[in-house]
């Protein structure tokens, strides 16, 4: 995708194609010879895992759409029909439903890895920002998808989330009505959500293309966070990273399969096996686990509009990270102070998720969870807007290794032989 190409067409057909549409050249340069830092660890395999997740969701989703009926009166029954009477329909649906959770699990690991090793820093700002856009699209797609089975949690989740727009002053209720296509969540809403749920994954696929393109310009960051300096620092993508990615992908698929085959409703909510009923509100409306931290932020603020702003701001904040981090060193390996704040941030996110999963008035050890969520929300914002800029200025980073090769192979081996 960038840099000098090392491809030489070997046959007549390849020469013919190369002069017209150099697809083999593209594949060769990006997936075969692409120089990749030799020190990438397990956390760098999640990019490939995420591409796999997207493909699985699209394939199973297309099959499910062949049997699903986007109609408020028939959607719930059509899903049960898939589960009972469509050949391997249960497999398609359980892979798709658990696939969403596995997709988010992988994307969170991918994002925390980027944060820890400073992968968002120059010259990779756009990779990060495009990534945030993918994450946002994923959340929208997952939300639309969760509405489709038209169970109780589908309906009430959709009601709660779309109602957030009504918090916008003056035009809020009009926006909500426009989104619903009605005066409440109903058949019109279900139909448009299905349409969007089918559309967005292809937009995600396109943006993933940009993400990978942007990655192939500067190349991978690495756990040391230092630039590639010589060919000694890299290995060709194939076979070194194809085999490594494949191994870790299969390990990930084993976890995936454990849920699909042995605990397929682990991430689900029992209420969603009851058909949507606008007259009966479930005692606790809980979103899927991957949205819980933001849900906790929303609920911890008594004012609805302010809650929506804080929740939205938490995601918008991510866009500015490349410029909020003032450190000259990328990787937290060499940032003793930032490393501690990073882990505290990870704990804050998990705490927020936990608070979001409990009822509003719950308490632990005598502490109301709403206050835990408030403190964690404040830390979330402080981490990006105060700690990142300040720590980058006051911290003394540890000494960086001279090169990737030296760090991996030791001093002697890293000295060029020729």
């Amino acid at each position: 995708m960038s840099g000098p190409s090392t491809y030489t067409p070997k046959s007549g057909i390849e020469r013919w194609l190369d002069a017209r549409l150099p697809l083999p050249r593209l594949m060769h340069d990006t997936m075969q010879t692409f120089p990749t830092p030799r020190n990438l660890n397990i956390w760098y395999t999640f990019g490939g895992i995420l591409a796999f997740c997207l493909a699985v969701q699209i394939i199973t989703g297309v099959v499910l759409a062949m049997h699903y009926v986007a109609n408020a009166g028939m959607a719930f029954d059509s899903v049960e029909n898939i589960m009972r009477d469509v050949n391997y329909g249960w497999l398609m649906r359980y892979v798709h439903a658990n696939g969403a959770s596995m997709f988010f699990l992988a994307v969170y690991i991918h994002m925390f890895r980027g944060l820890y090793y400073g992968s968002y820093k120059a010259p990779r700002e756009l990779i990060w920002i495009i990534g945030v856009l993918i994450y946002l699209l994923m959340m929208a797609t997952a939300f639309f998808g969760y509405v489709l089975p038209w169970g109780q949690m589908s309906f009430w989740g959709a009601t709660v989330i779309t109602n957030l727009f009504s918090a916008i002053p003056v035009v809020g209720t009009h926006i909500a009505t426009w989104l619903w296509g009605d005066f409440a969540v109903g058949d019109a809403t279900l139909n448009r959500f299905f349409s969007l749920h089918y559309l967005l994954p292809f937009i995600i696929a396109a943006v993933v293309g940009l993400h990978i393109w942007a990655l192939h310009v500067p190349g991978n960051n690495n756990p040391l966070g230092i630039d590639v300096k010589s060919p000694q620092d890299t290995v060709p993508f194939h076979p070194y990273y194809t085999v490594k990615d494949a191994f870790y992908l299969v390990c990930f698929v084993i976890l995936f399969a454990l849920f699909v085959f042995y605990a397929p409703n682990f991430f689900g909510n029992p209420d969603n096996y009851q058909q949507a009923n606008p007259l009966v509100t479930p005692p606790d409306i809980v979103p899927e686990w991957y949205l819980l931290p933001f849900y906790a932020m929303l609920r911890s603020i008594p004012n609805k509009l302010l809650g929506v702003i804080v929740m939205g701001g938490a995601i918008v904040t991510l866009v500015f990270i490349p410029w909020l981090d003032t450190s000259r060193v990328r990787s937290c390996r060499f940032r003793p102070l930032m490393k501690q704040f990073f882990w505290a941030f990870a704990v804050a996110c998990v705490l927020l998720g936990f608070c979001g999963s409990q009822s509003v008035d719950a308490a632990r050890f005598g502490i109301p969870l709403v206050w835990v969520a408030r403190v964690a929300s404040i830390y979330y914002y402080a981490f990006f807007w105060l700690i990142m800029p300040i720590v980058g200025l006051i911290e003394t980073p540890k000494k960086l290794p001279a090169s990737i090769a030296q760090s991996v192979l030791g001093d002697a081996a890293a000295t060029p032989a020729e």
Partner: protein
Amino acid sequence: MRLTTLTLGLAFGLLASTSAFAVDTTRLAPKDEKFSFEGPFGTYDRGSLQRGYQVYKEVCAACHAVNHLAFHHLAEPGGPEFTEAQVRALAAAAKLPAEPNDKGETTDDKGTPLMRSATVADHLPAPFPNENAARANNGGALPPDLSMIVKAREGGPQYVYSILTGFHMKTPDGFKVTDGKYFNPYFEGWNISMPPPLAANSVTYSDGTKATVEQEAHDVVTFLAWASEPKMEERKQLGFGVMVFLIGLAGILFAAYRKIWKDKH
């Protein structure tokens, strides 16, 4: 002092006798009943499924529908596995409203709706034609559809089993059962609209199994668990093959990974 004690005593007595809010009516944790279909290799007990269908049909079906079950499901592998002849007979015995006849009529001369026998492709008939009819016949309460009751309740099979066997317990002091409701501490709020559905010998099992309340509950919960998750056996079987394959593949890939990277780190 004595006056204070008296007042306090009176106050407590009043609270205890008149107010249901004094008692925490959070549902009890479900009983720890064991089922054959639990665990990664668990399968449905075929005899229990067939007996459970009998309990459903002879007891539960008076009020509860299983809308997602068709007669042919009863013959499919992984379910009660009645023979095809048995299922045909079961279907033929069930009556459904008939489609319009040649003259376009759905009732006979006297206005009685025309009925037809069910086929194996039909879903099990519901006890009531609509929600209003169901409520009118059940003191305003709606008996839920049981097709997915085991998946649709926190606690799953243990929860449903506990509800079915949780009647006839001594009402705690200070708790008064609402008129027209029944006491069941495994149900949230402790007041349940369903009268105790099972009694000893509610059904007569043809295989000689003794029909205690616990046995009937165990059997019908097994049946309802299958109704919720009819492809469970197929899922676990396929899952085992998939796991063996994936672990083998991971082993091969790990060997390849180690070999290729041998001198690179």
